[in-house]
């Protein structure tokens, strides 16, 4: 299955990309996706924490990412 991964703020600097198309063998949970990201982009270790958004909403670790989903890496926000 194919998903789109978006990087924002410091995470886009660390990964060196704003957007990636990623092919995964099967649907995975948000928690497993975080492990996948961490393994693929060890530079993300430099931020202690980040949230994941799934299709433009904050996602909990147990949610499952499916084909064509848009997943976003959301480092600590600093608007206002």
């Amino acid at each position, binding site marked *: 299955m194919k998903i789109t991964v*978006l990087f*924002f*703020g*410091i995470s886009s*600097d660390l990964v060196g990309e704003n957007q990636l198309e990623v092919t995964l063998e099967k649907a995975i949970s948000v928690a497993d996706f975080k492990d996948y990201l961490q393994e693929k982009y060890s530079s993300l270790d430099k*931020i*202690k*924490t980040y949230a994941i*958004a799934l299709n*433009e*909403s*904050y996602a909990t670790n147990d949610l499952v990412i499916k084909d064509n989903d848009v997943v*976003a890496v*959301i*480092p*600590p*926000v*600093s*608007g*206002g």
Partner: protein
Amino acid sequence: MQRTSIKITSSKLNLQECYAFVEDDVCGGITTFVGTVRNDTEGKEVLQLDFSTYKPMALKEMQKIADKALQDFEIHKIAIHHAEGMLQIGEIPVIITASAKHRKAAFLACEFAIDTLKETVPIWKKEYFSDGEVWVNAHP
């Protein structure tokens, strides 16, 4: 009647527009929060700030805040507008206005909206100094 006004723009924010949106004959007060770009961070001179957003999600999260404010406080209308792109010292990244029959609700709604925006809305600022730049709050 539309009771919320939500906007993210790369144009200059317009205080009069936010004020006019919430103004109504039924209201006895309007509160306004205007965020401005400060010239220093912990004693270090800031030259400018660059705001980036995950715009579709940020608009949704701002709408949630406005809806919750309407639900939790006795306000009439609320506007939440945020800027994106490069801002200079003194320029305005955010304006929130709330109108209410009585002032207390308007004060509370405004404070709730800016506090929650700073926690949940996917907007990031990068501070530019004379010797480099940093993402604000990236290492909490």
